[in-house]
C-alpha cells in the first residue's frame, strides 16, 4: 500500500486498473494502467473510438470510471472533494478535443481566466499575457474574438493558456487536425519547446501524425488497453 502511494506521488499521472463503459455499455477501458513521470511526455496513438478523448475526460475529472484509480499530481481525483479537484485542474492545460477557446471572448480574455482564478493582479496578468502572446506570434490578434482567428491560431491560443498559467501537465487532443503543414510545424515546434521546458504533455493522436516530441514515450491504445 505504501509502495503504491509513493509511486502515485512520483508520477504526475497514474491510472491503475481503470475500467470505463460507454453510453451503450460498450467497454472503453478494460483494466487500463498508465503512468507518466513528472516532466516526461507521452504520445498516445489510437484509432477513432479507441478512447483517446475519454482518457482526456477521465484525466480532467469529468468522466468517472466504473472502477480503478485515477491520480493526477498525487490526488485521487474521483475520491477528492470538489475544491481539491479544482486545484488539480488549475494545473492542467488542455488543447483540442473538449478544450476549446471561449468563442466570443477576445484572445486576451481567454488567456486571462486562469490567471484570474489564481488571483493575479491586472497589471501582472497583462505583462504575462503580452509576453506569451509575443512568444506565440499572436500579439496582433490580441483583441480579436476567438471565433475570428484561424484553427491554428486557436491551438496556439490554447497552448498560450497553459503557458500563462504555467500548467505542468498539458492534455492535447489531435493538435494537428485540420492544420496546414506550415502551421503544423509551428505547433509542433511550440509543443517541443514546452516539453523541453519541463511540461508534461500527453498528446492524443489518431494514426499517422508525424508528431514527435523530445523524450516522449509512445503508446498505442486499442481494445480498451494501452501498450
Amino acid at each position, binding site marked *: 500500500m505504501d509502495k503504491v502511494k509513493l509511486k502515485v506521488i512520483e508520477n504526475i499521472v497514474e491510472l491503475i486498473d481503470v475500467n470505463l463503459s460507454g453510453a451503450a455499455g460498450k467497454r472503453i477501458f478494460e483494466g487500463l494502467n498508465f503512468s507518466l513521470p513528472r516532466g516526461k511526455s507521452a504520445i498516445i496513438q489510437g484509432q477513432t473510438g479507441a478512447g483517446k478523448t475519454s482518457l482526456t475526460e477521465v484525466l480532467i475529472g469529468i468522466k468517472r470510471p466504473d472502477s480503478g484509480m485515477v491520480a493526477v499530481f498525487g490526488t485521487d481525483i474521483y475520491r477528492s472533494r470538489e475544491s481539491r479537484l479544482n486545484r488539480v*485542474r488549475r*494545473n492542467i492545460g488542455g488543447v483540442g478535443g*473538449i*478544450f*476549446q477557446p471561449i*468563442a466570443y471572448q477576445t484572445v486576451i480574455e481567454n488567456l486571462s481566466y486562469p490567471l*484570474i*482564478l489564481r488571483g493575479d493582479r491586472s497589471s501582472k496578468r497583462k505583462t504575462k499575457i503580452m509576453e506569451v502572446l509575443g512568444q506565440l506570434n499572436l500579439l496582433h490578434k490580441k483583441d480579436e474574438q476567438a471565433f475570428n482567428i484561424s484553427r491554428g491560431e486557436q491551438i496556439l491560443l490554447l497552448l498560450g493558456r497553459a503557458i500563462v498559467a504555467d500548467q505542468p501537465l498539458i492534455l492535447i487532443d489531435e493538435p494537428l487536425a485540420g492544420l496546414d503543414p506550415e502551421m503544423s510545424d509551428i505547433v509542433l515546434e511550440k509543443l517541443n519547446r514546452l516539453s523541453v521546458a519541463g511540461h508534461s504533455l500527453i498528446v492524443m493522436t489518431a494514426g499517422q501524425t508525424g508528431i514527435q516530441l523530445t523524450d516522449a514515450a509512445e503508446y498505442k491504445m486499442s481494445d480498451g488497453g494501452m501498450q
Partner: protein
Amino acid sequence: MIKIFYLIGKSATNIVARPLSAITSFLSLLLLLLMFDMVWISSLSAERYYERIAADIDMEIFLDDTLADSTVSGVLGTIVEMDGVADARYISKEKARDKLYSLMGADLLDGLEDNPLPRSVIITFENDYRSSANLATLKENLNRIDGVSEIYYPEEWLEKIEMTRGLIFKIVVFLGIVISLAVVLNLLHSIRLSARSRGQEILQHRLLGAGKFFISIPYILEG
C-alpha cells in the same frame, strides 16, 4: 478582491453584450411587478373604502315606553360602559319628532294627542370594533338590558361588505402568490437560458478549475 471585481465586471459585460435579452427580461419583470402593484393598490383602495363605510355605521336602540324617564340615564350609563361602545347619544321623543320633521319637511304627527315615536339611544363604536361578529355580540348584550325594546343596525349589509372585503383580500393574496411565482420563475428561466447559451464557456471554466460557485455568480448577478 480581484475575483470579486472580475465577477461584477463579468455580470455587467454579460448584460451589455446581450442588450435585447436583458431589456426583454427587464420589461417582462417590470410588467409583472406593475401588475402586482396595481392589484395591491386596488386592494388598498377597497380597504379604505370599506373603512370609510364602516365609520358611518351606528346602532339605534329603541327604549320601551314603559321605561320611566328617571331610569333612562341609568340605562345610558350601562350602554356606555359596554365593550366597543365609543359614544351613546340619547334621543328623546321630542328630538325624534324634530328629526322626523327635518327629514320629511313637515310635521306628520300634527293633530295627534300623543307622540308615538319611541325614545332611543344611538351608539357609535370604537374603530376596531366594527365587525359583524362584534356587533352581533353587542346586540345580544344590549337585548339583556331592561327597557330595551328593539335594536337596529345594518346587519345584513355589514355582513355583505365584510364578505366582499374577504373575497378581495383572497383574490389579492392569490394574485400576489401567482405574480411572485411568475417573477421567480421568470428570473430562474432567464438565468437558465443565459447559462445554457454559454454552455461551452461554462465547460471551459470548469476544466480550468473554477468552482461551481465562482462560475454561477455572474449568472445570478445578471438575473
